[in-house]
């Protein structure tokens, strides 16, 4: 399983795991898991639309991914859930419509749901690597401002880091990552690779850089193990990567829970709790 055509599979899957782990670190930190679900799944409909009018599905994928990102980015924080959900259902609706128009079974498009990791061609690798490098370069460059605005947006604003712009940039990075990874691992695997490893990593360490590195490491581990077992067993890769991502998270939480049980008591400061008693007079 390490020869010939499979070499390209290993290389592509490795690049995808690195991207998903790195983007996933910020996705989880920002609480953007829903966007990470909506953007790849909605973009899938774009691929169907492009295929229908005879364009390269990747162009449709990229267009819809960017469109979804901008729609989500334009929303106010309080309406984020609703806007994200509506962007997703609208795009899925369009996808169903495009399929109805085509009258054909578009296996090429359906494969985008779970990817074609075993069918990666050597000629696909260069664009994947190129887009991957761009994604990593943006995340490296913006590491500190993104970290600050993701964890403490009000504080970031005062030091000149506009949370709004950071949000737009981050969602566009997610669109870029989607365009790059979905043809390889599919929308569903992309989603699980972005969330499971990153969420597990932050249970294992409180150091930001180490957490990002561990997120990448766990994503690599999940994908590599998934491909190896899927190749040997003939069972679907989606099964192994999906359950693998969730299991990595559960294992990390259990480990963290064992390590710091005493801390659990006073985690959330009572921000909105009743004020302490003080003598008050009312008229």
């Amino acid at each position, binding site marked *: 399983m390490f020869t010939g055509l499979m070499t390209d599979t290993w290389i592509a899957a490795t690049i995808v795991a690195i991207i998903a782990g790195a983007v996933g670190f910020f996705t989880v*930190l920002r*609480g953007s898991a829903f966007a990470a679900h909506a953007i790849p799944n909605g973009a899938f409909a774009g691929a169907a639309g492009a295929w229908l009018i005879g364009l390269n599905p990747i162009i449709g994928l990229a267009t819809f991914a960017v469109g979804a990102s901008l729609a989500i980015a334009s929303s106010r924080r309080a309406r984020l859930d609703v806007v994200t959900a509506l962007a997703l259902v609208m795009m899925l609706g369009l996808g169903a419509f495009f399929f109805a128009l085509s009258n054909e079974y578009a296996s090429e498009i359906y494969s985008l749901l779970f990817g074609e990791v075993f069918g990666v061609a050597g000629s696909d690798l260069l664009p994947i690597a190129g887009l991957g490098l761009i994604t990593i370069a943006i995340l*490296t*460059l*913006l*590491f*500190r*401002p993104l*970290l*600050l605005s993701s*964890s*403490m947006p*009000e*504080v*970031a*604003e*005062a*030091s*000149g*880091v506009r949370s709004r712009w950071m949000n737009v940039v981050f969602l566009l990075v997610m669109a870029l990552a989607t365009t790059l990874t979905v043809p390889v691992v599919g929308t569903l695997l992309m989603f699980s690779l972005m969330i499971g490893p990153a969420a597990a*990593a*932050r*249970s294992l*360490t*409180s*150091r*930001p*850089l*180490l*957490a990002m590195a561990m997120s990448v490491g766990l994503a690599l581990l999940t994908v590599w193990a998934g491909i190896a077992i899927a190749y040997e067993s003939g069972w679907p890769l989606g099964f192994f990567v999906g359950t693998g991502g969730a299991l990595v998270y559960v294992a990390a939480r259990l480990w963290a829970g064992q390590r710091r049980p005493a*801390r659990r008591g*006073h*985690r*959330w*400061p*009572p*921000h*909105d*709790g009743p*004020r*302490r008693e*003080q*003598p*008050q*007079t*009312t*008229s």
Partner: protein
Amino acid sequence: MAGAFTPAEELVRLDQVSVRLDGREVLRSVSLVIGPGEFIGLIGPNGAGKTTIIRAILGLVPISRGSLVIEGGTRRRRDRSFGYVPQKLVIDPDAPLRVRDVVSLGLDGHRLGFPLPSRARRELIRETLASVGADRYADARIGELSGGEQQRVLIAHALIARPRLLLLDEPLANLDLRSEQSVVSLLARLVREQRISVLISAHDMNPLVPVMDRIVYVAGGRAASGRAEEVVRSDVLTELYGHHVDVIRVHDRILVVASPGVEEHTTTQPAELSVIGRAGA
């Protein structure tokens, strides 16, 4: 109060500043001067406009009328000479950020790329944490600390860039009595030892009275400033609120009490403008 500092010394000068947000005038002709080494309390009921004043100084909300001059006009608003501790910050308890990372982000969180680790940097972070009494938990996860501990870390985050003015929005809300007193004395010590100015907003001025140089009382988008005994008076506050209020001294406190029958004219709940001061201010 104006004229106590030369224009070049003034850190902030607001002249007749009005701010409109979503078509509503939230500040009306507010004037305020902050000089070097001053400890100023921004006092008033919830919704009076305290946060808007702070955000206007930081350049985060546009001013519709009046003028705002930062450091005698020598600096642009976006320059990071002011530290800021926002109101009610909720930090994800699982966020992979240690206390030292939060403070480190205060030094250069706006810069691109990764921070280069250096001994000088580590030492500066340690010193800053020690100056707010938070060095014991430098390696703890920020989200797992108590409200009072987080408050100290955020003050360290704001202090490490050596600001000349520290703006704190309701830092005492939701703290227990002991944390409240220790944060107030920490701020008073910073003003004394590091010669920085502090503008702190609070709906309850009690804990601040012993340390404040001046008070800026905000109600209904308007403000009156001066020493506590000049401002916390029935005539001044009646003018500010637009309806009659009494200032009553009971034991060690000053109570500001709305007169009976004015509820329909007030925009604030009577309970919120009850206790605002302590006698002997």
